């Protein structure tokens, strides 16, 4: 089913999303990938504040290519989510609403998604040019020294994603493959 949602997102809204839904996201989201997650974890370990509030917010696992003049961002597709698995349950327990990435998640992450009523979306990997057209502004808000891995605040309009793991723990990667498997 096709849905249009806003970011940040409420738990009630997340609950309506089912694995397999095609969703267009509009609003404010944040980027963070490997090195930024490591820093966020170190920040939490020191008992300090994260660079942005997690409450109902969405993290897009993405490190863009540089923007050409006059454009908000370069190519901007998702990176593999499983590399962030080690850090993710803690962020979900602190209120992170949703994640946008690609690829499988660990059992610990899926458990934390269900426990917190969160959701994991996949954007199409390798479609960075087309996805960049949905990003209307981009601003580095933390860890600028990390270059492409810095944390960015993005304003997005109708960013197309698919619900892969919903708040009940249904996993499209597992169910859809069975449907088309000839084995």
């Amino acid at each position, binding site marked *: 089913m096709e849905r249009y949602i806003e970011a940040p997102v409420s738990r009630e809204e997340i609950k309506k999303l089912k694995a397999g839904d095609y969703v267009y996201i509009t609003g404010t989201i944040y980027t963070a990938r490997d090195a930024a997650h490591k820093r966020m974890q170190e920040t939490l370990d020191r008992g300090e504040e994260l660079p942005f509030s997690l409450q109902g917010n969405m993290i897009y696992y993405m490190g863009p*290519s*540089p923007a050409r003049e006059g454009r908000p961002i370069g190519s901007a597709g998702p990176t593999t989510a499983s590399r962030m698995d080690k850090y993710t349950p803690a962020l979900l327990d602190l209120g992170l609403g949703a994640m946008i990435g690609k690829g499988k998640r660990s059992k610990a992450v899926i458990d934390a998604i269900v426990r917190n009523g969160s959701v994991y979306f*996949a954007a*199409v990997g*390798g479609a*960075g040019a*087309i996805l960049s057209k949905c990003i209307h502004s981009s601003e580095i808000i933390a860890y600028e020294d990390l270059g492409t891995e810095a944390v960015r605040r993005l304003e997005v309009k109708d960013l197309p994603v698919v619900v892969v793991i919903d708040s009940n723990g249904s996993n*499209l990667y597992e169910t*859809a493959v069975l449907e088309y498997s*000839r084995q």
Partner: protein
Amino acid sequence: MRHITTKEITRTIKQMCIEANHTLSPDMKSVFETAVKEEASPLGKKILNQLEENLRIAEEDMIPICQDTGMAVVFMKVGQDVHIEGGGLTDAVNQGVREGYTEGFLRKSVVSDPIERVNTKDNTPAVIHYEIVDGDQLEITVAPKGFGSENMSRIFMLKPADGIEGVKDAILTAVKDAGPNACPPMVVGVGIGGTFEKCAFMAKHALTRNLKETSPIPYVRDLEKEMLHKINGLGIGPGGLGGTVTALAVNIETYPTHIAGLPVAVNICCHVNRHVHRVI
């Protein structure tokens, strides 16, 4: 003896890095068209259409096809009658990568040390494979490699008794484990034989072969065809969201090996299988 300047090599590598990241070769585009027609899943078809549109936008608006513009892998066949003038060949290649990634607005994804992990900020160094060949030309292939799929690649040190069935199992295992992580539909490069490092090299090199060509060895050609069919029966589909097009091609290279061994390497590439070829 023919003289080629490092300046010309640098300029060529720079152009190749930029071209590879914005335009796929005609053989890649053509397999895409076939894939869209063959995909049975409506969501899979939708994703393939998005990917075709993505290629169009990348080329027209000069936005890299994928934000992971890769680590630059360069295959260089150096004719033994070539004399390089104006400095070192490796420096010239790295300078081309530096200029291409900086001036071409490509992402700098290389860190100087695997543990200390400080970004080199110009995407150097490249991974360069030299081969000395007959003649007085330089044959260059630039293949920027993204790491979503690189991370899902595997080496299997099989034993002779495992035979061709063992090879098939190894390829299917690698593709199954890669699943949605490797950005399917994938191109699967396979190296069979040689030594540990030789089979990995062949698997990487196989990815640069024109997808319209097949192996010259009859049993390998049959194996490529059979494995493509088997992989597409796994159900992984475009984006890993289910479907009948999981791989666009399977390219296999072989080499003589030791009486005790049967090495198999599977180098997986996403659908952004970039490779540009030039001869100087």
